[in-house]
């Protein structure tokens, strides 16, 4: 067994590249797009689309997920809100990759590598009465046998980048809907709804605590029609086999297994931004952190900073472990949830502590620390709340089915 924490040379190059991008292109825009909440950060979008994505180091494969985590950490160190506005497939793209055929993948995703105007992918899963409880989805998809189309009806909330994905031609929203409400999870399927499809309407944008640069949309679907082959996976509802036959639902969950380490890495980026800021300010004020002082000699600040560092690094290592397991194609749902739960909570605390340590200065909008505290909190909530991740971890370590532990 080889235990190695060294990032590959290519991943280190990617880290440096994204760090420069974060520092030079994102940070200068942070405060502005936090304040102008519903204004798309056009210069950032354009920069990323025209240059950023093209010059990114590539190759040297094998550690794809770890590199994805490193990228997410660096860019969210820059700005988590702006990160979420990047013109990429995002969770919508991940769903196509997880559940689509090769043909669908090519059809829906190739434009993200193209040279047209910037486009976005998004995922629409949450509903007003189906939050953590995805199986309670009310949005319906019905097949029109005459035209062979799927007709989608319902309302989706908390759709990250839903505005950009639904408005800009070439992009798409992956919508989760049920073919049969009585079939529970087995009836839930996902559909690719291209931007501009009649019947899909942007009806609202949330005003949020943080990550304000990113749009969080409410989308309605009224007799929204997509062709037959926009269904991802199979249309078959495995009858009465609730425990095993819910492949559509499962692929949603698989998307989360893949996305959770990335979300953890995003959290870590925000937490690191706050921690580095605190450390720099302390240094400027002549306050040193004495790592090998005996515990009984530490100042409260030294101990706080050491705790913050340990928590952050512990979360980062859990995150890389989950990513590394994905690279190895090992099941990682336990580890992905551990990374997400730990990172969400650690970073919530780290950023709150950073604000507190800096006193009035930390609370003022003159520095970004207060913003990072607001941005960080989303990581405890989306892509499975703290509680949902604890539930997943508990079921795994106890070897309990979901019926035993709710």
């Amino acid at each position, binding site marked *: 067994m080889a235990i190695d924490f060294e990032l590959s040379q290519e991943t280190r190059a990617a880290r440096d590249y994204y760090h420069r991008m974060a520092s030079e292109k994102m940070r200068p825009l942070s405060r502005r797009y936090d304040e102008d909440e519903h204004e798309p950060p056009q210069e950032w979008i354009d920069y990323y689309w025209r240059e950023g994505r093209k010059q990114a180091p590539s190759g040297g494969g094998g550690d794809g997920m770890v590199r994805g985590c490193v990228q997410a950490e660096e860019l969210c160190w820059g700005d988590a809100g702006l990160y979420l506005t990047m013109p990429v497939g995002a969770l919508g793209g991940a769903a196509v990759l997880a559940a689509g055929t090769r043909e669908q993948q090519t059809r829906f995703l190739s434009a993200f590598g193209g040279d047209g105007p910037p486009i976005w992918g998004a995922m629409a899963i*949450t509903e007003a009465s189906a*939050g953590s409880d995805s199986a309670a989805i009310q949005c319906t998809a019905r097949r029109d046998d005459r035209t062979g189309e799927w007709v989608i009806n319902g309302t989706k909330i908390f759709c990250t980048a839903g505005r950009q994905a639904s408005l800009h031609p070439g992009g798409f929203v992956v919508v989760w809907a049920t073919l049969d409400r009585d079939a529970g999870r087995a009836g839930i399927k996902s559909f690719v709804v291209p931007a501009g499809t009649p019947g899909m309407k942007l009806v609202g944008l949330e*005003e949020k605590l943080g990550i304000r640069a990113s749009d969080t949309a409410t989308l309605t679907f009224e007799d929204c029609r997509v062709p037959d082959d926009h269904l991802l996976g199979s249309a078959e509802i495995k009858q009465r086999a609730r425990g095993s036959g819910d492949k559509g639902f499962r692929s949603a969950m698989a998307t989360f297994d893949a996305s959770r380490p990335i979300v953890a890495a995003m959290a870590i980026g925000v937490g690191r931004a706050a921690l580095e800021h605190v450390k720099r300010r302390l240094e400027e004020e002549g306050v040193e952190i004495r790592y090998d002082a005996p515990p009984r000699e530490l100042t409260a600040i030294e101990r706080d900073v050491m705790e913050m560092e340990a928590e952050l690094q512990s979360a980062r290592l859990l995150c890389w472990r989950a990513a590394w397991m994905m690279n190895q194609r090992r099941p990682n749902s336990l580890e992905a949830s551990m990374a997400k739960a730990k990172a969400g909570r650690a970073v919530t605390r780290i950023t*709150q502590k950073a604000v507190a340590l800096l006193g*009035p200065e930390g609370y*003022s*909008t003159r520095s970004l620390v207060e913003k990072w505290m607001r941005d960080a909190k989303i990581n405890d*909530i989306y892509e499975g*709340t703290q509680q949902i991740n604890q539930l997943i971890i508990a079921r795994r370590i106890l070897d309990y089915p979901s019926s035993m532990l709710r």
Partner: protein
Amino acid sequence: MGLTSHALPEDCGGGGARSAVTQALMAEELACGDLALALAILSPLLLSLPLADYGSDAQKQRYLPGLAGPDFRPGALAVAEPRFDSDALRPRTRARPEGKGYVLDGVKCLVPWLEGVPCVGVVAQDEDGPQIFLVDAEAEGLRAEPAQYMGLRALPLVELQLESVRLPRSARLGEGAGSDVAAILARGRVGLAALATGVARAAFELARDYAKQRETFGAPIATRQSIAFLLADLATEIDGLRLLTWEAAWRLDRGEDARREAALASQQAQRVVLEAADGAVQIFGGHGYVREYLPELLLRNAGGFAGFEALTLV
């Protein structure tokens, strides 16, 4: 409205019913409604209580009638400074004796600055240690610049620049005798603890009601132990904080030195208010993160308590 004048001595036009415990109760109730509004309503106390305790006769006559009168007249006290290690008892703002008066230089922040504020009490270091100086809002050299913070958006807060602000000797609170700034700040810490109790209670009550009403997997989320026990812990911590706050206030009312109790209450307050607001956001889930619901506002307000100093007094 009497809320802030009943505590003043009768010869100052007040109700003569000074009680830190009563002030703490009031602060909790108001802050449970809205912290920014509570701070605005309670702001006259920032001037009137120190004046009543330490003011010279001339100072009382000049300022108190307005603060105790029938019309609302805001007050302002400038304690915190915009730096990482703001220390109320060792302000960097200086009051240098010069000729027959003082010259003040420095920067203050987080100062409530409502329309019509007549004057501000500025904590500055002079030859006797930290002292309070009564500076007219219109004084030359005083500049109030609107400042923005994570929370308290509904309260006008300013950063005060003091550049060679010249004051007569009579502008020092208590004049020759001065005032006990540490004691005033202890009252501010108890006040903050009471405000924090109110904000925490608001968060708890919102979260409790939401948890009973919001269903997932066919049952209210309050029926899950993770949510129910979080609420139980918050209820316990909030009651504990309130009792600590009351005890500190009760000691003040008995004329005892309550600096230790004030420090303990305000330390607990910082922790509990943040846990409660964070817990409410967590229980509201996605809805906790959007401005349509109150938890996110409570979290932004709660996040400042570590930096607040004397935003009200008891």
